[in-house]
């Protein structure tokens, strides 16, 4: 086990316990910058942790980043770990990040679906959903990216509990979703919400459940363009960008449609790398390049948010 976050191996995949230990190490090493918040417990009783990066102040506007809501998308949790370390490493050296953190807090949820993630390590590497039970069905789990209260249950989600896109009994039925909803609502000053998935190399903004354009579509599109351009500049990885419904398909009850409906203008979702050969089984050697390029796009979005506070 790593004794510090400097000796932690960022180029391999880690178990839930190792990630939670990493978070504790990071907090212990940077108590002035990082703290750990528990926002709830999963269906199976695991704690749901969020890292808070703050240089002080109260009631500050904030940026939310989450990784790993679909448990099998391992490169996302691994990237989340790298982002956490990157923030602590760069916040005094990188002017852009320093200015962001001078004005805003950053919340980072590295493992958004802990039950599912533990299950991918122990039992089924291909598990995507939560691990909640549906009365009357032998099938387990709900797609947490169809469980939000935004066009819930409409086209683009399944009512079949055995489907990978099962939306659940009702909006927020999943405690992993409800915990974020409660946190975001109570906080009240989240200005950007970025939810990170893999794979297929996309940067998406609302909406997913309707083909109506988001009122801020033009600004979101411009920002997505510049974020993607920053991302591509590092390793040449090509991303497409656009609204969820136009770029991939109709999806109801998705995370960023809800956050956008809550007034969080800068709501984005990423789909990270796809080598074209390995899908969810992205080789560990690609974790760091994936995280590095994604960080550049995140910085663009965070920088724009801090300069256009509303």
């Amino acid at each position: 086990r790593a004794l510090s976050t400097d000796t932690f191996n960022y180029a391999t995949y880690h178990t839930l316990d190792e990630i939670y230990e990493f978070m504790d190490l990071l907090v212990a090493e940077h108590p002035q910058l990082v703290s750990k918040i528990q926002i709830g417990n999963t269906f199976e009783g695991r704690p749901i942790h969020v890292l808070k990066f703050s240089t002080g102040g109260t009631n500050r506007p904030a940026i939310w980043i989450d990784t790993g809501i679909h448990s099998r998308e391992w490169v996302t949790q691994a990237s989340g770990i790298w982002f956490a370390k990157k923030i602590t490493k760069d916040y005094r050296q990188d002017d852009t990040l320093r200015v962001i953190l001078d004005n805003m807090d950053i919340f980072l949820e590295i493992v958004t679906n802990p039950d599912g993630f533990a299950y991918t390590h122990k039992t089924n590497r291909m598990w995507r959903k939560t691990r909640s039970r549906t009365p009357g069905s032998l099938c387990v789990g709900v797609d947490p990216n169809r469980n939000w209260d935004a066009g819930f249950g409409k086209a683009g989600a399944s009512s079949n509990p055995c489907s990978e896109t099962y939306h659940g009994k009702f909006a927020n039925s999943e405690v992993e979703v409800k915990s974020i909803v409660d946190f975001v609502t109570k906080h009240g000053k989240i200005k950007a919400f970025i939810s990170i998935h893999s794979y297929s190399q996309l940067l998406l903004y609302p909406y997913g459940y309707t083909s109506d354009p988001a009122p801020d579509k033009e600004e979101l599109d411009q920002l997505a363009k510049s974020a993607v351009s920053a991302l591509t500049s590092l390793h040449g990885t090509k991303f497409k960008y656009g609204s969820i419904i136009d770029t991939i398909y109709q999806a109801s009850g998705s995370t960023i449609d809800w956050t956008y409906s809550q007034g969080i203008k800068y709501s984005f979702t990423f789909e990270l790398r796809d080598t074209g050969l390995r899908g969810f089984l992205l080789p560990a050697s690609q974790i760091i390049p994936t995280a590095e390029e994604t960080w550049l796009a995140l910085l663009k979005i965070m920088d724009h948010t801090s300069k256009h506070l509303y």
Partner: protein
Amino acid sequence: NENFVGHQVLRISAADEAQLQKVKELEDLEHLKLDFWRDPARAGIPIDVRVPFPSVQSVKAFLEYHDISYEIMIEDVQSLLDEEKQQMAAFQA
């Protein structure tokens, strides 16, 4: 542990709306136990699907019968998972 020996991931290219509909029909056949890594969205966008070993021949036959082109993206899912596990174990050691 769930075993994925012989599971293949196919990358399917639906050339038009009719072919896309055919792939969607496959999605509805629950007994095949297909796992869509990339759902059928629209023609021209690749569709990736993990096919369990017992369904591999049926799915390929279906695609070939309907003249839908595909390639094998992952030959054997379990071998990649074994590699992944070995690498993690090596780092932990």
